[in-house]
């Protein structure tokens, strides 16, 4: 009797679990990077899109990296329909068939967009630039170039750098005089890679590593560092709060995240409609006036306030920028990131 009762209870609870796990038609779901960034996206894109279609839109946070996608591949679950990804995940997901190969006729003419925003599986979301920022209050001599970042005599003091070889090694090489076009040609040789590490080694004792994008402007404001690489939007945000931080645009590193659609999503049509909705230049401009990242649609620039546009990764500011989505960059990092990560970690800990 008692055992039967246990068994019944167990069977019932298993049943509940099974029911909860069963595929209940899920609403259209978008995943992005969370925080203030996603708040801005909700205000300017998600909510207006849902309202215009009369549908409910669910949101989630993507934490970066491949683990969440690997779990999706292995379980076959597709909790999201659209997600914003970085280049390495974009390429991997596109090659491994996790993302839809985009039909551009359903989004818009490719020529409407800046070049890095158009790829096989992804539509550019925001153009983010990683560049040198500094606080004039912290230094007597203001830096004028990336070379000054490595000049401890001219400008002594701590420097913030992103704790990631990607983008940082390129930054070091370009500061050492390598042309933006030749960065990967140089890095692909042993001597070139050594040169990048040697350049960083020359200021190693003065480096303070940052992990989260919010740290760099915080340190600039608090005076913990005299200058730091940082994302342009973060610096603009600090300046909106009344801090007079400045930016050096020379050879800034461009990151263009992409919207991708999951293959096997029940809402592929809605997803395409969302992407089309997203590309509206006025809407993109409204987002940028809120949050200072560049937009994929070239026409958006017209609607952006001039004082915002001046601090934007667009136009002259990115004339000599290094796009991390370009073919040789993607290829180099897919081939070498494991090995370089080891060397980077060993060097950093030394």
């Amino acid at each position: 009797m008692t055992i039967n009762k246990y068994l019944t209870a167990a069977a019932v609870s298993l049943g509940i679990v099974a029911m909860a796990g069963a595929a209940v038609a899920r609403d259209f779901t978008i995943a992005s990077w969370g925080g203030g960034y996603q708040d801005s996206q909700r205000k300017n894109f998600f909510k207006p899109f849902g309202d215009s279609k009369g549908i409910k839109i669910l949101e989630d946070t993507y934490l970066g990296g491949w683990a969440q996608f690997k779990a999706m591949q292995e379980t076959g679950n597709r909790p999201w329909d659209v997600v914003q990804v970085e280049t390495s995940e974009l390429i991997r997901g596109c090659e491994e068939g996790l993302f839809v190969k985009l039909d551009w006729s359903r989004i818009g003419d490719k020529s409407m967009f800046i070049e890095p925003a158009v790829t096989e599986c992804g539509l550019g979301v925001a153009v983010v630039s990683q560049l040198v920022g500094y606080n004039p209050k912290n230094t007597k001599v203001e830096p004028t170039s990336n070379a000054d970042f490595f000049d401890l005599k001219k400008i002594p003091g701590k420097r913030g750098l992103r704790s990631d070889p990607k983008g940082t090694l390129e930054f070091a090489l370009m500061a050492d005089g390598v042309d933006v076009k030749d960065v990967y040609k140089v890095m692909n040789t042993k001597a070139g890679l050594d040169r990048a590490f040697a350049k960083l080694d020359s200021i190693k004792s003065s480096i303070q590593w940052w992990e989260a994008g919010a740290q760099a402007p915080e340190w600039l404001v608090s005076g913990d560092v005299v200058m730091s690489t940082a994302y342009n939007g973060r610096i603009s945000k600090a300046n909106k709060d009344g801090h007079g931080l400045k930016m050096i645009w020379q050879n800034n590193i461009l990151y263009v995240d992409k919207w991708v659609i999951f293959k096997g999503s029940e809402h592929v049509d809605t997803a395409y409609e969302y992407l089309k909705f997203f590309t509206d230049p006025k809407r993109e401009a409204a987002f940028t006036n809120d949050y200072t990242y560049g937009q994929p649609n070239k026409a958006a620039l017209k609607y952006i306030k001039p004082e915002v546009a001046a601090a934007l990764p667009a136009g002259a500011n990115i004339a000599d920028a290094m796009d991390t989505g370009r073919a040789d960059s993607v290829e180099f990092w897919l081939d070498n990131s494991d090995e370089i990560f080891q060397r980077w970690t060993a060097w950093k800990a030394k």
Partner: protein
Amino acid sequence: MTSQPIDAGPAPDRNILKANLRRAERRRKMRAYGLIAPLFLFLLAFFLVPIGSVLYFSVSNPEVVTMLPRVTAALRDWDTRSLPGEAVFAALAEDMKQGYADTTLPKVSLRLNYEVSGFRSLLMRTGRKAKHMKAPFKAAMIARDKRWAELTYWRTIKANDSRYTLHYLLQALDLDLQWDGSVRRVAPDHQIYLSNLRRTLWIALVVTIICILLGYPVACIIATAPPRVAKYLILLVLLPFWTSLLVRTAAWVIVLQKSGIVNDALIGLGLIEVPLALIFNRTGVYISMVHILLPFMILPLYSVMKGIPGDHVRAAASLGATPRSAFLSVYFPQTVPGLAAGCLLVFVISLGFYITPMLIGGGSDQMLAYLIAEFATNTANWGLAGALAMLLLVCIAVLYPFYQRFAGAGGMKLG
């Protein structure tokens, strides 16, 4: 009270009685099992299965065998000293064609790239054209990419023709498994794991020692304070638990930074002129880790000290012991079990720290869990993440008997 023994009854009765007893016993046992079943299932689901799968991931190597089946089979009889023949090239071309179509080629490319940097682009670039390749495949593939004329790539495929590998476990020890089965140390400028493990153990040890030095007197004071005061003191010890680890870590940044509370106060008092470097180095890591872990030392110590009657030390004193020898030979030995439990807790939890060192430490203060997280969540190299987790697990397993000896001996003395 019936005094009649059970055996006294007639044989059939006795058997029925025995059967009844057995049934009752069985029912009781079943109920007992039923009661512990939730715990057992919980342990199974959240402890044994994850650890088992971590172990499995660290040796599992299914990619090459399942995604390049033809070429692995064709390479079985290869002499490894001269370039493979046309049949092997043809097998690889067929594998690549299929792998490109069913999107398994990127996965196996990534796996092989762990061993030879550049293998990924080699396979993908050739794979994209495999559909249009015609015999002779050897010439066609070498024309596409001349790296196919090098032995390294073929040897690496051949070396992975088993579903299991020691590659990840050896890598976690800074060793490199060669294609011929020999093992070599990796180049010094690529060695990261053993030095990181040493650092992780060292940080955990230092944090544990500081926790003892700070926590022991505190626990002692709480245990001997009047109950009304003790209640509030315990509350103060527990207070940090009410906020998340991340918040506490962020708070330390504000306190310790260059223009933080501590530095401003010291400069304001005229004690220092240049701000002290309290953060983004080991000092900051120790300060914040000790703060987070101190309760784990104080609580077990307090619970043991609470049970030590005050008259023991008084008796020792009345028998002529100095305060020092009364403490060392009467009080301290009785606190050893609590001390051992506190040390184990603090040490083991310290080993798994990574957010605090990541946000408060410098480049040379990162701990092993940082690397595990990098491989587990970012690159999704679960083989290496699993191997590093095994490394930590083995360290704890090796240290545990010492703890048991230490705590067990202390416990015996107590009895």
